[in-house]
């Protein structure tokens, strides 16, 4: 019975692994000609998985009822929230990718498979309640991601991105593994519940080192400063659909993992990691803002913007309470919508031959040549800057409110003041599109799927998004409650 129950809880992982193996066989026989069919099938699989996560989220499943495989894995509302966002991000990637790769004559059947496998790994990351399950999920995701980053084999930048990602990602994994082994050595357990119990009371120095190394490794994965260096290069070099994927799914997974590790495994010693998180959050906000100012490539700019946004999300984590976690999840959901809108819009920037345009200068006067696209990008930029009435404001609002309620007034004040630096480069993009004379570079057309995705995501970040605040708050509240349900 226990086996059946565990199998039921890990349903999405089973669907993903079985279907990716079947699709792998289809790819072996069908070859690259079948890549479009396989992509569609993969999107369908992801949709099924997304639907499967919904009950756990709305019914606020938590605690022992969600625990599977002897406490290795949890299918609670928190995991469901993370998985839902991850599967959405993966599906968006698969929808926009074929058009991009076909132009480069690089569409291969492996692409959707790698995305499916990475999604499975990320699903495990947010579900893991044991250090070993965590590491398996992380590596499953990372190995797929390294290949995805260098998917345009003939493109130097793509190959460079893949190599950089691999070397630095392995380093981070090593740091994480070292931290895990230290933690195991000083607590005698790899399960989060066991670590939680063992860390309570007085803390040995060795355990502190373990916590610090684990957090450093995870900070790498969420691309928080000072471990952010790989982000701009990888984002710029990787093919744009892959960048879209990196900006959404692994970010959600790694942040989810960071939350579960900090708040559950290390939850009995918040004082130890709270100051680290505060430092990392502020540094990410400032570096993300300052680094973006000089950029002339829109993908690099969005990379710094994601560093900046991670900083704001970490403010929610720094609160170390349930309200902070819920705020962080709300921000995460809005961040996913903003990233989808931003990267789909970037994918739609094409010149007359259909070649992608990435330089910000080439976007001059976009409001005249492609008014709707410019409007969408302007909405994304103001939203990322957190200017009301766009929905991006709400994400910042909830995390800062959580910080104020938790008494972290100076953190909130410094963080919000630093957000003004970020506003400078966001409005610079708007300035280029709206105030400058048209260069008529971006004249290419975009396909229907991209338009629909852009429309949906821009509506979500428009002021209409505020109508979602109630339901979003309830779902994030369920997820956060599951995180704090200590069995």
């Amino acid at each position, binding site marked *: 019975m226990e086996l059946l129950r565990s199998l039921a809880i890990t349903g999405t992982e089973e669907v993903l692994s079985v279907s990716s193996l079947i699709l792998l066989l289809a790819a072996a026989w069908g070859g690259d000609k079948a890549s479009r069919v396989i992509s569609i099938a993969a999107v369908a699989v992801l949709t099924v998985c997304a639907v499967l996560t919904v009950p756990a989220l709305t019914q606020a499943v938590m605690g022992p009822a969600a625990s599977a495989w002897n406490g290795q894995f949890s299918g609670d509302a928190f995991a469901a929230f993370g998985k839902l966002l991850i599967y959405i991000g993966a599906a968006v990637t698969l929808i926009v990718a074929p058009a991009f790769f076909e132009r480069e004559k690089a569409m291969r059947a492996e692409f959707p498979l790698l995305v499916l496998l990475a999604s499975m790994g990320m699903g495990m990351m947010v579900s893991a309640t044991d250090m070993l399950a965590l590491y398996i999920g992380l590596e499953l995701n990372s190995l797929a991601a390294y290949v995805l980053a260098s998917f345009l084999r003939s493109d130097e930048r793509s190959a460079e991105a893949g190599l950089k990602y691999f070397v630095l990602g392995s380093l981070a994994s090593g740091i994480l593994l070292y931290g895990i082994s230290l933690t195991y050595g000083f607590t005698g357990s790899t399960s989060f519940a066991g670590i939680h119990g063992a860390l309570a009371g007085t803390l040995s120095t060795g355990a502190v080192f373990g916590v610090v190394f684990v957090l450093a490794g995870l900070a790498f994965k969420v691309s928080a400063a000072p471990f952010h260096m790989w982000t701009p290069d990888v984002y710029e070099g990787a093919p744009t659909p892959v960048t879209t994927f990196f900006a959404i799914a692994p970010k959600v997974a790694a942040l989810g993992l960071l939350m579960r590790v900090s708040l559950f495994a290390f939850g009995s010693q918040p004082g130890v990691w709270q100051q680290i998180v505060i430092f990392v959050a502020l540094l990410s906000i400032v570096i993300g803002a300052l680094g973006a100012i000089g950029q002339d490539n829109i993908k690099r700019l969005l990379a710094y913007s994601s560093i900046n946004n991670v900083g704001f999300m970490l403010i929610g984590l720094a609160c170390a309470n349930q309200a902070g976690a819920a705020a962080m999840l709300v921000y995460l959901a809005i961040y996913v919508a903003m990233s989808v809108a931003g990267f789909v819009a970037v994918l739609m920037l094409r010149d007359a031959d259909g070649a992608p345009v990435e330089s910000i200068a080439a976007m001059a006067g976009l*409001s*005249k040549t492609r008014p709707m696209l410019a409007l969408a990008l302007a909405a994304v930029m*103001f939203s990322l800057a957190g*200017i*009301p*009435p766009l929905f991006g*404001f709400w994400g910042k*609002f*909830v995390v*800062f*409110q959580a910080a*104020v*309620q938790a008494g972290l*007034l100076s953190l*909130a*004040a410094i963080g*919000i*003041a630093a*957000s*003004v630096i970020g*506003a*400078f480069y966001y*409005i610079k993009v*708007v*300035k280029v599109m*709206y*105030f400058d004379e048209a260069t008529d570079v971006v004249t290419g057309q975009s396909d229907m799927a991209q338009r629909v995705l852009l429309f949906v995501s821009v509506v979500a970040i428009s002021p209409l998004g*505020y*109508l979602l*605040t*109630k339901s*979003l*708050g309830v779902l994030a509240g369920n997820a956060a409650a599951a995180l704090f349900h200590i069995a």
Partner: protein
Amino acid sequence: MIGFPILSLMLLVPLVGAVACLMAGRESARMIALAVTLLDLVLGAVLWSHYQIGGPTWQFQEHASIFAGFEWKLGIDGIALLLIALTVFLMPICIGASWNAIEKRAGEYYANFLIMETLMIGVFTAQDLFLFYIMFEAGLIPMYLIIGIWGGADRIYASYKFFLYTLLGSVLMLIAMMWMVNEAGTSDIPTLMAYSFPVKAQTWLWLALFASFAVKMPMWPTHTWLPDAHVQAPTAGSVILAGVLLKMGGYGFIRFSLPMFPEASAQFAPLVWGLSMAAVVITSLIALVQHDIKKLIAYSSVAHMAIVTVGLFAFNRQGLEGSMLIMLSHGLVAGALFLAVGVIYDRLHTREIDRYGGLAINMPAYALFFMLFTMASIGLPGTSGFVGEFLSLMGIYAQSSWVALICTTGIILGAAYMLYLYRRVVFGVQKNEDAAAMPDLDKREWAMMIPLAAVVLWMGVYPETFLAPMRKDIAALDARLAQARPRGDADVQLAAMPPAAATHEHGDAMEHGEQAAHAARHEGAR
């Protein structure tokens, strides 16, 4: 009371109009914009006529819980009513001013203006702290675009400066508001206005809000974005900036800083006075040497706003009522002056004072209107400017005769720079042929000037119309401030009355003096 949610409707109408404008061409966009702003003006008139003077404090209240964390909650008192009336009155005139001047991307232009209208009305009607903040901040986006797209040669610098200055000012306000809501347990503005925050916290909260409102107002020395923004903005942008946006700062003081933090307001009153005195003198002197007409009026705006702030922080009824009246009057007069500049700018495409001269000869009607608004700006009795400035200065005189003395120099300097401007532009010889060949006002310009002139005179001759709706609210605010009011000059004179006593009795004497002063103040209040 009216049977339908009039405030929501007033917010919705321009928003729908904005969407329609985005899709329309130039001709139809401006017709839509005019129709929509006139419809909002009618709604505003209905609002005023149904407003019960002396009725409940908050009227036309609406409430819908459709958001998490904050509420859709609207309602107005007399103060908000007057500022809404100012907004809906100026908007059709702004559209009129843009009628021929805006040629490129007209649909987007009018859409931005209509969104501005929604947000401005939203600021004055919001009864939820966070709803207020959203409306207050959101105004940055359309104004940034208006300055940046349709502005003058140096528009990009001006738009950045406007955006970043005002954003930096208001983000700290958000943190303060969150703290307030956390402390008081509600984001309902009327409740917060009666809540007593701990005096120690008030200091910080007051400063955080001050950062925002002082930039918006703008107060010296954070005023530097204003001349740039005004000079570069298109005429209608300047009108709305001077007419309504600056009033948001004053509204913020009167709605938040003063009633919510009376003790901190008293504590910081000398700071406000100091900055205001500096502003009056410095910006007036700067205005005196300007070569650019718009810049001159922009600096004069800073000087007028400084008299508003001293009036607000005079802690008495005259000061508060005077400040409200200056805000209304300045909204009309500065708007009208920018409009007058726009009229000649449309003809000659320069704001350089030296390029004009002798306009009284070829543009007599224009000269007449310009004269009226110049006089109103100076504060000539019989125009709107006089009533407000007189009351404000009277209010501050009760607190500190020195502050009153220095601020009054603003009136003299104001007369100097405005009359000097008028002489150079309208009188004198016609030294430039092209300026001499400019035609007088056309029908459209007449239609914009006449309502403004009529209201300016009305407010000057019979201010009661504008004082009546807000009297009760000002009285309530004054009562709220009474406990914290700093001892002013009016009290000190009375305190000095007891003859010098022996040293050990001195403390007693002082106490007596204070009691006497208190008694006298109560007498005065009656």
